[in-house]
């Protein structure tokens, strides 16, 4: 009897790993990457495993992480958000132009910017749910419009200065840990709880994998989906503000490449395009993998062509051979 119970426990654990949020293949990929880095360090003596490199990677990873978390929610809902570039850039510009070097304004403006991002996300969500516009097109259209509006507003010349407080948040550390990382960890824990523990996370997952059951179970499907886009927009805008702090520069195109990278991070982490699956842990690992690749490529002086090919091949390998998010 006891033996049987023990067996059951084992089975449950095995089942959980197999069915767990993160595919074992992803852990394997991360492990392989770390081993590759170790070998590289041993052979060529590059300083991969140094505190400062790790912290740098972690800080960069936070920025992508914010966006990738939002993207994860949207992908889980069955969508895709291509408007993050526009949203990040807008957040970036808003931060500098409204705060204009005044430390006292950092938090109010951060809040305001997040609201703007959330509003843009809501437009995405409304187009997708109320009108059934395919997410790809809805978010693409919205992103073009937002870019246009931002450029009209700035006349192409970003104004304002990034205040010291924001720079400190973007680049400074607390007890040896970069603020960005601390903030990201808090946000990630919040989202981990949201996705894995909260009723919203459960409802999002169910809505993504079977919208019909969701509706019949009394879930307000549209609200769940719109919320996902809203959160993605809010996180994007927030990331835009932090990006201004990180670089100290307001840039009309600060968000470039974040769309593709955030989608890649989420999908590498097990979020399936089409909806239903995805997790914070997975996305975090996915983002880490992407950034480690970049970091290793630079440490190894790989030229741009190899960097691009490696990135493409990693996506193919991860999704083609280890991926669970197959269609």
């Amino acid at each position, binding site marked *: 009897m006891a033996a049987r119970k023990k067996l059951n426990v084992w089975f449950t654990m095995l089942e959980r790993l197999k069915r767990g949020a993160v595919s074992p293949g992803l852990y394997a990929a991360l492990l392989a990457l770390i081993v590759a880095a170790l070998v590289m360090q041993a052979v060529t003596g*590059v*300083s991969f495993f*140094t505190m*400062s*490199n790790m912290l*740098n990677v972690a800080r*960069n990873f936070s*920025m992508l992480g914010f966006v990738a978390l939002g993207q994860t929610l949207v992908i889980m809902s069955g969508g895709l958000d291509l408007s993050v570039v526009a949203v990040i850039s807008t957040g970036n510009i808003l931060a500098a132009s409204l705060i204009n070097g005044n430390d006292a304004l950092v938090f109010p403006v951060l809040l305001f910017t997040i609201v703007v991002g959330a509003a843009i996300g809501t437009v995405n969500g409304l187009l997708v749910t*109320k*009108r059934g516009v395919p997410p790809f097109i809805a978010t693409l259209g919205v992103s073009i419009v937002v870019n246009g509006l931002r*450029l009209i507003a700035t*006349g*192409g*010349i*970003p*104004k*304002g*200065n990034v205040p010291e407080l924001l720079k400190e948040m973007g*680049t400074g550390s607390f007890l040896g840990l970069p603020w960005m990382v601390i903030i990201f960890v808090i946000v990630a824990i919040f989202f981990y709880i949201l996705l894995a523990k909260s009723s919203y996370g459960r409802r999002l997952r169910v809505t993504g994998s079977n919208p019909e059951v969701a509706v019949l179970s009394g879930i307000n499907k549209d609200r769940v989906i719109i919320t996902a886009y809203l959160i993605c927009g809010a996180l994007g805008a927030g990331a835009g503000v932090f*990006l201004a702090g*990180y*670089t*100290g*520069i*307001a*840039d*009309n*195109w*600060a968000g*470039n*490449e974040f769309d593709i990278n955030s989608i890649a991070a989420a999908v590498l982490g097990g979020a399936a395009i089409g909806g239903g699956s995805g997790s914070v842990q997975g996305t975090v690992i996915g983002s880490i993998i992407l950034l480690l690749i*970049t*970091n290793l490529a*630079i*440490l190894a*002086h790989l030229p*741009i062509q190899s960097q691009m090919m490696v990135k493409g091949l990693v996506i193919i390998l991860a999704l083609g051979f280890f991926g669970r998010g197959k269609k």
Partner: protein
Amino acid sequence: MKKGLSLILITLLMLSLGAAVFAGGQQDAAGKDEFVIGWSNAGMGDSWRQFLKANFEAEVAANPEIVKYYISDANERPEKQIADIDDLLAKGVDGLIIYPTVGDAIIPAVERAYESGIPVIVFGGSINTDSLTCLVTQDLYEFGRSQAKWLAEELGGKGKIIMLSGIAGNTTAEERLAGAREVFDANPGIEVLDHQYCDWSAAKTKTIVEAMLNAFPEIDGIWADSGLMSWPALQAFEEAGRKLVPSTGDQLNGYAKYVSEKNVPAYLYPMSTRLSAEAVKVLVAAMKGETVDKKVAASFEGMGPEAIKKFVKPELSDWWWVGDDQMPAEFLPRL
């Protein structure tokens, strides 16, 4: 709800189109000594282009013969630029200036325009054809060379440097890089630790430079083809607690502010937005029937630390272009 949304969307679209018409209101065709000119621009996505436009407009205003001008925007796409050039020709311009997206990928359109009998001025980039009235250019190899020379001298011909380029495959970035490489190859004392493309993006630059700082315990100098990269690179140095090193860039005010504030040697080589004014000057001459040279090589002075201090505008936007603001105030980009 749905109906309302549709109505709003249609109204918005129609209003915008209406506004577009209004904004673009017609003007009478040009008389004999009155010229209508067209500018096929590559893109308008950044402040440098705004200054380019401001200089253009200031110069146009200085030439009353030009009664009307059109500007098209190719969105950085050569195919769109070819269509734009055809559109401008169809509108019947008396002269055309072209800022190429990718010079060698619009040659047929340039030739077509030239063969249609109007003066065609290409400026700002290189292009490999003779079928044009004049190429007003700044030597981009020289751009990179000049920066590299300064850096090599500043380091006393000896030191380890990193190189940061713009977008891989972009003509401007590649020509500047080639020019710089020439100099460094000729200077055996200069060791190039690494070269990476940073896409003229501050965030990307910082990420890359942070990794480089970890890989290389000693970096003595930064060659970057733009201030938008040397500036965040220096910030990365600062944050890592490393000594700030000599660097190169272009005349971006934010970079100039930073280096003059930190009092660190730097060299700005202008990618001057005044080229557009030069192009207009040459175009007017050509339209008036004066003979113009096939090639006008505009040369600009690089700015060392002293010059930077003189030209920097600490009170203005980071995205101001140092030294390019010598035009009547009404034409300056609004801030």
